[in-house]
């Protein structure tokens, strides 16, 4: 079947401002949107630029705005979007070129929540024990692939670059509720700041956008409640 793609293009080396380019390509309904992009890049217009790697939704490279919603191009099938497809870069980040945006601020925010296990006790000879229930407690947030679909779907981040963003909170959550970790207090203190969880207005765009099905808003709300009660179980 034939699909019509409208893709936002912008190469700061030559273009004054972003514009739309249109392409028609022949695809199968079961192809991914990424396959359509590849067809354009490989056989129609080699200058089209986007990131991609795994092609099955596990590496987080190809987050972009497809028909107005943040999606991974490799995790959306043509049959689910129809034949008119508009593709734009993520909102709230500087455009480097076409669909490629500057991810540095995103990773800086991620790094600011201490996203690593902190446990100062000497490690045992074998594993640290953890019950299946304690492990299950933070299972959902371990799925994050740092694709930025959530952060860039949140209307707060579009205008307020101070907000740490849902992805960083998700990754803080992953450690705050890990029974092996000892630095919940530090992370909570960071998220208690002006740019932390309180900036979230429960918009739920993040949850809707997450390609890994993480209940992002739920995680944020759990952190809020922990800050309120001091209870991190």
């Amino acid at each position, binding site marked *: 079947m034939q699909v019509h793609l409208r893709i936002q293009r912008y190469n700061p080396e030559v273009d004054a401002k972003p514009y739309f380019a249109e392409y028609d390509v022949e695809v199968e309904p079961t192809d991914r949107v990424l396959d359509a992009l590849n067809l354009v890049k490989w056989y129609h217009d080699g200058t089209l630029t986007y990131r991609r790697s795994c092609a099955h939704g596990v590496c987080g490279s190809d987050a972009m705005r497809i*028909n107005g919603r943040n999606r991974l191009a490799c995790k959306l099938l043509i049959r689910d979007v*129809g034949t008119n497809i*508009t593709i734009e870069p993520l909102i709230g980040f500087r455009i480097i070129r076409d669909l490629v945006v500057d991810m540095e601020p995103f990773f800086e925010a991620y790094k600011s929540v201490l996203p690593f296990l902190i446990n100062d006790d000497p490690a045992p000879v074998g594993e640290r024990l953890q019950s299946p229930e304690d492990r299950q407690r933070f299972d959902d947030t371990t799925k994050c692939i740092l694709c930025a679909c959530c952060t860039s779907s949140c209307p707060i981040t579009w205008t307020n670059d101070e907000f740490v963003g849902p992805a960083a909170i998700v990754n803080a959550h992953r450690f705050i509720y890990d029974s092996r970790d000892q630095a919940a207090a530090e992370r909570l203190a960071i998220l208690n700041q002006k740019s932390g969880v309180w900036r979230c207005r429960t918009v739920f765009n993040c949850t809707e956008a997450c390609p890994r099905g993480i209940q992002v*808003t739920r995680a944020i709300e759990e952190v809020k*409640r922990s800050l309120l009660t001091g209870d991190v179980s």
Partner: protein
Amino acid sequence: MVSNYRGYRPPQGMVSWALHRLAGLGVLVFLLLHIVDIFAVGYGPEAFNELLFIYRHPVFRVGELILVAGLYYHALNGVRIILVDFWSQGWKYERQMFQAVIALFLLTFIPTALLMLRPLF
């Protein structure tokens, strides 16, 4: 299928938030006006009654309806937000709660509006 769309196509959670913020700020503007007029009460009946003509102006009648609509929606959705915040299962029913907000809003606002417009009939 929305295509040819620029910007973000809002999921319903975003609609609920945008309305909430808009309504909150709208009610705030009205509140500020309202404080000015009650301040005028201190200057006696003439001054106050003088001001009241604004309230009786048809444009204000419409504004008054919008104020009440905004307040009702904001209040109901405020409860939804509070439930999402404090009830650990709230996130699961966010959509249903929004539908409930809309339903309750219509249920309360329509009779209110009819009552308010009764002088017109």
